[in-house]
């Protein structure tokens, strides 16, 4: 057996082992990267989802502001209408009530 050729053969095997280790290491590194990528993608999707929810929320707020505004306005209108009706009925019966009160004040039972 040629000693050179024997040494060459062992060398080739060692090199193959090293390359094999690299292949496996690369795969492991890719896996780690991939998992990190998963986290990155999760954050991106979460940010998108949050943005969507924020839009919905802001829409809700502006709707509520409008709704609340219209509610308050309606309430004010109802209140003013009640008070207006009140003053109308007051003016109708005011002199009548005053007369009634005076009648009792000046009608003395002895």
């Amino acid at each position, binding site marked *: *057996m040629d000693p050179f*050729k*024997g040494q060459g*053969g062992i060398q*080739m*095997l060692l090199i*193959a*082992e090293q*390359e*094999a*280790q690299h*292949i*496996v290491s690369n*795969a492991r590194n*890719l*896996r780690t990267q*991939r*998992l990190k*990528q*998963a*986290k990155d*993608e*999760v954050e991106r*999707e*979460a940010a998108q*989802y*949050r943005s969507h*929810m*924020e839009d*919905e*929320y802001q829409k*809700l*707020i502006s709707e*509520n502001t409008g709704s*609340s505004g219209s*509610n*308050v306005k309606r*309430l*004010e209108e*109802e*209140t003013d209408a*009640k*008070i207006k009706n*009140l*003053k109308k*009925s*007051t003016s109708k*019966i*005011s002199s009548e*009530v*005053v007369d*009634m*009160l*005076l009648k*009792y*004040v*000046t009608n*003395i*039972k*002895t």
Partner: protein
Amino acid sequence: MNDADVSKQIQQMVRFIRQEAEEKANEISVSAEEEFNIEKLQLVEAEKKKIRQEYERKERQVEIRKKIEYSMQLNASRIKVLQAQDDVISSMKEAASKELLNVSHHHDDHVYRNLLKDLIVQCLLRLKEPSVLLRCRKDDLHLVENVLDSAAQEYAEKANVDPPEIIVDNQVYLPPGLTHQNSHDLYCSGGVVLASRDGKIVCENTLDARLDVVFRKKLPEIRKQLFGQIVA
């Protein structure tokens, strides 16, 4: 074994080593992808849930704030209506109070004089005292002195007793009627105040006091006329 065979065997071993490595790498890659998908799905779902809960909480707070605001507005509205109701009733009483001045000012003396007599008789009937003190406005003094005897006589007949002694206070008078000058002072629109001699029993029969009593008594009726059946 010749060199060719040795070389052949080494090549075979090298291929085997590489094949093993590539199979392992492939296995790692496949499981990495699975882990990737599972991990991503789980994390995305967890994040979304967290975000969703956050916004549900914020929306609930908006709803609550909205309800609180409306409730406050509604309450303010009710108070406003109640205040308006009180205001109109007060204005009626005020109008009646002003009219009292006409009773003692613009009527002819006969009507007011008769009123004073009746007021005195009413007090005498309630006090049932043989001797009483009487206070009136200074402006009414002459009218009161005019009717004292007939009031005492009327009381005596009604109560079937001797005519009482009525002492008119010439030192202290009831305050005068409301004018622009004394709008913040005590005032009396007319009428009399009688008291037992020891001062312990008082019969306040001023027009203003009578208006207070009548007003309080008739308030439910007035409110009913104004506000219908709704009890405000």
